[in-house]
């Protein structure tokens, strides 16, 4: 299902990029040329220039393997954003296994099979790393716990993570059926 979604997003992006690059009516050409004109100094217009979005990771937000939380800084379903932590990078800490990462003052419960990592936390019974120049907390939000899939997508976001909630989100990410109601 996620791969089908990825393919559909690629096709949609390609169709839209084609329509931006080769306008099919005078009005489309007009919108395009004025967008380009304003893009010289207007950031909002720069965002509208579409010469292809295929270099952006596709978003899986709203698909069933994610436990959605639309108010999260990095929404479930999107690929993680990197940040310097300690003497390494967040991406390298999260790879290859389900990982629960706590940013700032949030305690991480123990869940079998889920690695735990604290960022900008004083001390805990799991590895902790410093937040370099506030990048990680700025990108993920203070006091939030993120469950990352082994492929680096955000599976769920918690402000008060519990072991049952995290386990349910992990099971859901694995496609196991659980009686999941509100876990955030």
């Amino acid at each position, binding site marked *: 299902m996620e791969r089908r979604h990825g393919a559909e997003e690629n096709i949609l992006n390609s169709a*839209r990029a084609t329509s*931006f690059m080769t306008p099919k009516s*005078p*009005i489309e050409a007009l919108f395009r040329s004025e967008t380009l004109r*304003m893009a010289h*100094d*207007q950031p*909002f217009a720069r965002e*509208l220039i*579409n010469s292809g979005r295929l270099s952006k990771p596709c978003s899986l937000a709203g698909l069933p393997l994610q436990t959605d939380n639309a108010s999260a800084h990095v929404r479930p379903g999107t690929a993680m954003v990197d940040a310097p932590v300690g003497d390494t990078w967040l991406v390298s800490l999260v790879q290859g296994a389900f990982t629960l990462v706590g940013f700032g003052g949030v305690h991480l419960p123990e869940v079998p099979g889920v690695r735990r990592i604290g960022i900008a936390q004083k001390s805990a019974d799991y590895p902790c790393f410093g937040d370099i120049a506030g990048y990680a907390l700025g990108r993920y939000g203070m006091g939030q716990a993120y469950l990352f899939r082994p492929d680096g997508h955000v599976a769920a976001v918690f402000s008060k993570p519990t072991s049952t909630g995290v386990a349910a989100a992990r099971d859901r990410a694995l496609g196991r059926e659980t009686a999941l109601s509100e876990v955030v």
Partner: protein
Amino acid sequence: MTKRTIHASGFSGRGDDVYAALLEAHDGLSETESHALNARLVLLMANRIGDAEAVRELLATARSYVD
């Protein structure tokens, strides 16, 4: 040059959706009909903004790009 203000993106990452919707609204219209649609849209958006000063500021910015 009239006074121009600079605008950060307010699209929250949905800029492509907005742009596509805009072009879709014009789909199949003659050029005259498209200009009329744009005029209605500008009036609707001006009404949504409401504040005369804010509208004037956007008009000045749009006007500032006229060669």
